[in-house]
């Protein structure tokens, strides 16, 4: 496996904000790598540094053995504009053709249109496309130059289920033909459908780097909500990784295994009332695992992070 791109102890600040904090990451050829994390975790900043749009504050970013700031290094790199970015007066065919002219060995406009279902739309101005069509065109542009490495930033945000599946299929077909793909998302479902390896980011740091299955097990949290006057004791029970203080006197605890937590809770004899259990959303799992819950549970979150860093 060749390393196509590498981040070596990369830190990027925006003024006071630390967007990426000492990230080291190798992107190997041949895989689909999912970059998962809540908004503001630093996923997009990592991509923009790989594209040469931003320079790291410290550390080095390498693309195909060179600097991503050198335009020649980007000859085999594919990326997507945001859906709102397409110049509204240009026609679909003109945009594909324009992008293709930058590459030594591009796919033909007709081939791209066929692959991404844009054949009927080539004469249309991009301003007249629907959201889903714009998104398909944006993703298609990433593959026009027959790239070795493709960076997709939230490729299906805002699309309905069908449109999302169609796009995933197209991305998988391109991957089968040899493109290495890095896809960012805050949908676990999307990462599950596409990726083989997942890197979870939170607060600018890599908090997990593993296979999809392993990461899913780590981020599948359950919420246990109850009213108790001894929340610290509950937090101390095995398996609790975080907690949130509710407004109505209740406390929400996050645990990987809620059944076991309740057994432990009953066994401990801590008084409680109003028990409810439900699955945590991915966002909630992230917030817990990345230490954004209230300060009281900080210690548990840190231990959870350590666990994930192993």
């Amino acid at each position: 496996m060749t390393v196509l791109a590498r981040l070596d102890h990369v830190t990027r600040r925006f003024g006071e904000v630390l967007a990426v904090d000492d990230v080291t990451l190798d992107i190997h050829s041949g895989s689909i790598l999912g970059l998962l994390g809540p908004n503001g975790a630093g996923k997009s900043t990592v991509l923009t540094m790989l594209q040469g749009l931003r320079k790291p504050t410290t550390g080095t970013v390498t693309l195909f053995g060179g600097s991503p700031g050198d335009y020649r290094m980007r000859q085999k790199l594919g990326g997507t504009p945001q859906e709102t970015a397409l110049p509204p007066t240009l026609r679909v065919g003109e945009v594909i053709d324009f992008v293709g002219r930058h590459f030594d060995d591009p796919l033909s406009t007709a081939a791209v249109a066929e692959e991404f279902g844009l054949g009927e739309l080539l004469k249309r101005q991009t301003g007249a496309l629907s959201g889903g069509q714009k998104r398909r065109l944006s993703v298609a542009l990433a593959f026009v130059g027959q790239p070795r490495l493709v960076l997709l930033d939230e490729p299906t945000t805002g699309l309905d289920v069908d449109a999302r599946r169609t796009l995933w299929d197209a991305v998988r077909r391109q991957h089968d033909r040899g493109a290495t793909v890095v896809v960012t998302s805050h949908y676990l479902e999307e990462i599950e459908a596409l990726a083989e390896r997942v890197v979870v980011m939170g607060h600018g740091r890599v908090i997990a780097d593993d296979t999809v299955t392993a990461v899913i097990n780590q981020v599948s949290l359950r919420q246990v909500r109850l009213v108790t006057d001894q929340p610290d004791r509950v937090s101390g029970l095995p398996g609790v990784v975080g907690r949130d203080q509710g407004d109505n006197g209740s406390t929400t605890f996050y645990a990987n295994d809620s059944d076991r937590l309740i057994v432990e809770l009953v066994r401990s004899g801590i008084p409680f009332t109003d028990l409810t259990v439900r699955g945590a959303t991915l966002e909630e799992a992230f917030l817990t695992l990345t230490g954004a819950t209230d300060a009281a549970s900080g210690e548990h979150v840190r231990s959870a992070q350590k666990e994930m860093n192993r």
Partner: protein
Amino acid sequence: MSTLTPTPTGTAPGSRAPVLGGRTGILALTLVHARIILVETFRIPAALIGSLVFPGLSLLFFVVPQRTVADNPEFATQAVIALSVFALMSNSLFSFGLNISANREQPWDPYLRTLPVPGVSRVLGQICSTGLMGLVSILPVIAIGALFTAAEASVLGVLAGIVALGISALPFMFIGISIGYSMSSKAAIAVVQIVMFGLAFAGGLFLPPYLFADWLDTLSKFLPSRQAREFVIWAVQGGELEPWVWIGILVWTAATFALALLLFRRDEGRRYR
């Protein structure tokens, strides 16, 4: 259907020298970018009217009715030249200043920066397309000048004048680029207008400099607009070229080019804090 073939591993695909010619050379990419800018511009024809028609109208309203100027071949020719300089200057300032600052706020521009295209091709593409528009915008000025005033110039003089216009427009382009890369589009509109009218009045493009007070005349000689006016008049009508004209153009071109390059390199798109 074409297929994606992975290139042999271990070789960096980008490890070749920058090339001028060829399919993805600097020249080809310059044309690709110039063309797409023109296509985009012409899709909204109303946007063209401002830069294409305004200088011609100015000549028609401000110069043609003043028969003392319009009937005097020397003054009329100078008025036509001054408005041609104005046409090119406003075109350069507006299309660079506003396009660049507006584009930096659109996510399309950051996308273009991720494509394998050197910055020089994008800037040259902008200059070629703007240059062509500038050339078109002085055609009505020349036509109105020839038909309704006593302005006169030899064919060779006109050609020399167009070359001189192109050279003396460089500082305006670089000022426009600097404005585009240093502020938001709303600020850029205001600044471009102030710079444009300031340079136009003080540079003798609306009122001939012989009507100026001495202090204004002295100040005027330090401005790129006044230098451009004198330079083109010299190219068309002949006579003597005073050193402050060409030295001024050289200094302004070098200084504004350095500033534009600095701001372009520093730019990472619009920053929100």
